[in-house]
């Protein structure tokens, strides 16, 4: 598998970083951050048009170069499988994309997924030809069921959405990565800074999806570049194979031929 290529539902994207388009102070900054991130896939949300503004107001699509970045509509804000299926269908029509980042939320405070609803919606949408990318918790059993339901990837959280806490349960993620080898595992949510992203990539994640970590940073464009490099660095380190950890030192320079040694 190529270092920089992420394959989803039979299509390849030349970056392992997926970024969100929400929470930016303005569209111009969003556009610059997306460019700096090097992403080829951006998430978007589906909402009612604003009837109080003629033309519905400024359009996000005016600021996205869809020749360079593909659209990944989400079902954010949905609390039932039926709602999520409904929004996915609208997202497909509005974004002309078969991809869906499937969210079925089970709890308002944590935004943790409702696994039962997630599975149900995955089955329906797979049948309708969607490439389903479900946002899930770091639970191997749920991941296996999503795979069996036909999901094109599984997207476990590192930490709650927007928390910036970084990976909170390395054991769960490691177990999941060990077992789910036949489809991409994309860590979605909770990444706060570059090391969070490289850490999960080093562990073997196929990609990282983030929004707040970039959009909420002091300088989103700089952070977008940092995340790009972090994802690449983590992937390269994973492919290279790290050295084993040892407790004591091993000299890096020759121990023979030291100056001043008399035989």
């Amino acid at each position, binding site marked *: 598998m190529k270092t920089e290529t992420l394959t989803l539902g039979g299509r390849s994207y030349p970056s392992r970083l997926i970024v*969100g*388009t929400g929470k*930016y102070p303005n569209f111009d900054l969003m556009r610059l951050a997306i460019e700096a991130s090097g992403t080829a896939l951006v998430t978007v949300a589906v909402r009612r*048009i604003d009837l109080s503004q003629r033309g519905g107001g400024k359009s*996000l699509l005016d600021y996205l170069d869809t020749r360079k970045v593909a659209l990944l509509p989400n079902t954010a804000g949905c609390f039932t499988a039926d709602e999520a299926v409904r929004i996915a269908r609208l*997202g497909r029509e509005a974004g002309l994309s078969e991809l869906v980042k499937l969210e079925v939320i089970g709890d308002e405070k944590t935004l943790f997924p409702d696994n039962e609803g997630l599975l149900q919606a995955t089955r329906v949408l797979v049948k309708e030809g969607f490439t389903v990318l479900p946002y899930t918790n770091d639970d191997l059993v749920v991941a296996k069921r999503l795979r069996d339901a036909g999901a094109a990837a599984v997207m476990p959280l590192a930490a709650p959405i927007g928390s910036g806490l970084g990976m909170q349960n390395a054991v769960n993620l490691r177990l999941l990565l060990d077992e789910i080898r036949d489809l991409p595992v994309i860590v979605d949510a909770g990444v706060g800074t570059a090391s969070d992203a490289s850490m999960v990539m080093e562990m073997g994640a196929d990609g990282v999806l983030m929004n707040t970590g970039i959009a909420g940073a002091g300088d989103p464009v700089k952070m977008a570049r940092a995340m790009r490099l972090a994802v690449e660095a983590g992937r390269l380190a994973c492919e290279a194979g790290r050295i084993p950890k040892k407790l004591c030192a091993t000299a890096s320079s020759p121990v023979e031929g030291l100056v001043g040694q008399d035989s």
Partner: protein
Amino acid sequence: MSGASNVTIVLNGETRGVPAGATVLALLETIGIAPGRVAIEVNGRVVRRDDYLRLVLRDNDKLEVVHLVGGG
């Protein structure tokens, strides 16, 4: 009594009148929305773009007109 020349629809939760015989496309023109960038649901079913010109709005139709916005 509502006039025979109007039908009442609910558009994104707001009740409004449209001329009898108005199509989905005519409604979009009235509210100033370009048809290429929205998705439309009438009574819970997504309407394909090719059908905007054909589909005539009827009394009590419930419409959702959505577009893509920033999100994660």
